[in-house]
């Protein structure tokens, strides 16, 4: 059989950061789309971003306004966004008001007017805002269906990519003929979760190409809408082949416990209670990376970047120089109303910008607190997506997590996330003699050997230092209240046993 070429559907940029990935690479050219949602959900802004990204004087955009928001006020507000380029008006983007025709005539006249303008301008993009007000009172369902059908046909014939904007409720999805005719259906939602606003976008339908399913978070900022794909924009990227390289922690004895270091592309969890040195260990990990030329990102939630850098300096770890050299980014993520997707986007941007190999999330508890309450319920699932996505591109992640110290249990994390981690290092206090000392143990190292030893360590001016002498004379160390195997012997103080470092 003769093989003939299939039609190629060009993909147009949406003009919305993150949305191209969600829709499968861009919006199909000549498609007939609906943007639906409640008032204030960002429908007009989304349409404007598309228009400004695609309109040219040769193939302009026609933006029909009907009843509802006044075009003057709409432009007054929309021009505040950074994507709004006034120079594109009126040659590349033309606003046309149809109120008079809608008020005084029937749908046939509306179609006639739109067609007339389209024939005159030969537009690449047509927007009708709000389409809902235009068809609020059709004579019959058939009248409406015929109108939509003819409008879609006419605009497609004129090779225009079309957006109809409407304030629709979700229960209208079943019966409204417009949703049947549409090639693409974008639904914007806005809900209040306690004191935070959560905005989500769903591509309910998109003919001709695979979009990323599910609800995607979006935010409206001075730059307009920014969408955050559930897959973090990583589905389109090829998996990075990760060499089984070992990354040093910057703590020689710990590297030995890890059979040479953390495997590149692993997700490491450092769990321990307050003051056990989780952040110190994390800082040593990132500092060791920058020292040997591996760029890194530190996402901090509980302290400001400057404080983080200063604390590292007090341990003799220089984070300031790699920051200046562009090898290290300390991200302080604005707390309380973030979504995981936004956080991820910031981290991903950082990873791409400096080519980061190591990422520290300090801490998961802080991360969870920084999220909008509505996202906290999905924290574990979101974390899974994030870790999977980042390790997939070869980034080695170290997360710290605070666990409640118990003298009867040995929990790894309060989030039940240990299955997300390839490697788990547990830090804890033990009561020996009249002292609260610290021990470290590698609980898990997926696909690799690791030391089974329980090692005592100290936090010194040089960071975490694992002591040479083993606590072999004690039993029940992980209980936190070990007993000396020989009760007649006196406990040895750890300060006598700190090894000298090179």
């Amino acid at each position: 059989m003769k093989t003939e070429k299939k039609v190629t559907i060009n993909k147009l940029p949406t003009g919305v950061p993150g949305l191209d990935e969600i829709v499968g690479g861009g919006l199909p050219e000549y498609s007939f789309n609906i943007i639906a949602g409640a008032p204030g959900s960002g429908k007009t802004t989304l349409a404007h971003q598309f228009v400004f990204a695609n309109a040219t004087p040769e193939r302009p955009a026609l933006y029909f306004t009907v009843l509802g928001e006044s075009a003057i006020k709409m432009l007054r507000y929309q021009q505040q966004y950074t994507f709004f380029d006034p120079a594109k008006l009126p040659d590349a983007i033309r606003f046309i008001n149809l109120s008079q025709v809608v008020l005084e005539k029937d749908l046939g006249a509306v179609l006639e007017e739109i067609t007339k303008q389209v024939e005159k301008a030969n537009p690449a993009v047509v927007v009708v805002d709000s389409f809902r007000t235009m068809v609020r009172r059709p004579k019959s369902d058939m009248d409406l269906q015929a109108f939509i059908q003819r409008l879609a046909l006419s605009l497609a014939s004129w090779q225009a990519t079309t957006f109809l904007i409407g304030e629709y409720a979700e229960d209208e999805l079943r019966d409204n003929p417009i949703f049947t005719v549409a090639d693409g259906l974008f639904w914007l939602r806005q809900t209040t979760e306690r004191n935070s606003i959560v905005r989500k976008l769903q591509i309910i339908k998109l003919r001709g190409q695979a979009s990323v399913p599910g609800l995607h978070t979006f935010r409206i900022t001075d730059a307009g809408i920014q969408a955050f794909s559930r897959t973090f924009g990583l589905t389109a990227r090829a998996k990075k082949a990760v060499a089984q390289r070992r990354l040093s922690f910057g703590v020689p004895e710990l590297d030995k416990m890890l059979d040479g270091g953390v495997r590149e592309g692993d997700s490491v969890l450092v769990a321990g209670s307050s003051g056990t040195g989780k952040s110190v260990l994390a800082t040593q990990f990132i500092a060791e990376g920058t020292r040997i030329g591996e760029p890194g990102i530190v996402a901090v939630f509980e302290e400001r970047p400057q404080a983080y850098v200063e604390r590292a300096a007090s341990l003799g770890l220089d984070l300031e120089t790699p920051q200046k050299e562009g090898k290290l980014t300390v991200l302080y993520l604005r707390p309380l109303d973030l979504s995981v997707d936004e956080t991820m986007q910031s981290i991903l941007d950082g990873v791409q910008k400096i080519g980061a190999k190591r990422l520290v999330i300090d801490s998961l508890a802080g991360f969870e607190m920084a999220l909008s309450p509505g996202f906290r319920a999905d924290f574990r699932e979101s974390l899974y997506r994030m870790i999977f996505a980042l390790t997939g591109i070869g980034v080695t992640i170290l997360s710290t997590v605070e666990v409640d110290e118990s003298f009867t249990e040995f929990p790894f994390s309060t989030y039940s996330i240990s299955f997300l981690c390839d490697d788990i290092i547990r830090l804890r206090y033990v009561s020996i003699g009249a002292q609260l000392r610290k021990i470290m143990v590698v609980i898990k190292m997926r696909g690799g050997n690791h030391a089974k030893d329980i090692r005592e360590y100290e936090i010194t001016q040089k960071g975490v230092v694992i002591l040479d002498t083993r606590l072999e004379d004690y039993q029940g160390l992980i209980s936190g209240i070990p007993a000396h195997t020989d009760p007649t012997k006196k406990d040895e103080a750890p300060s006598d046993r700190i090894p000298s470092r090179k």
Partner: protein
Amino acid sequence: MPKMSTSPEIRELAARLIAHESGVGKSSEGTDSAALSVYKKLRQSISAFAGAAAFESLAFRALMQAQSEAPRLRAVQITEDGSIEGLAELKFQIGDDMDLAGEEGAILIARLLGLLQIFLGEALTLSLLRDAWPATAIDDRSSGNWRKS
């Protein structure tokens, strides 16, 4: 309440548009007709993108403001569809004082442009005007960018 006025730059622009229309009409119809012609073009342009009702609201507001500055404009009215009545007749009421007549029309146009600037900003207002007039009628300003009145 302080009396609001239009900036010199906007007045200058209004005068330039009127002068341009006057030139197009070869001065046979006089300056008031030129102001009317500017008004009509603005009406057409603004109604096309924002609707007749939006233009009527702006024009009515502009007229109210202009009347406080030029009391003779009280004889002028804006109709429901945004057209203006009485502007063309104004010059006959004030006889041969053509400068004064031109000034009355310019005040109204300047007020209308001032409102556009307030709501749409300089860039979009100029875009709108460039669509209705040739660039030479808009852009040969010696005073640079508009500033807030």
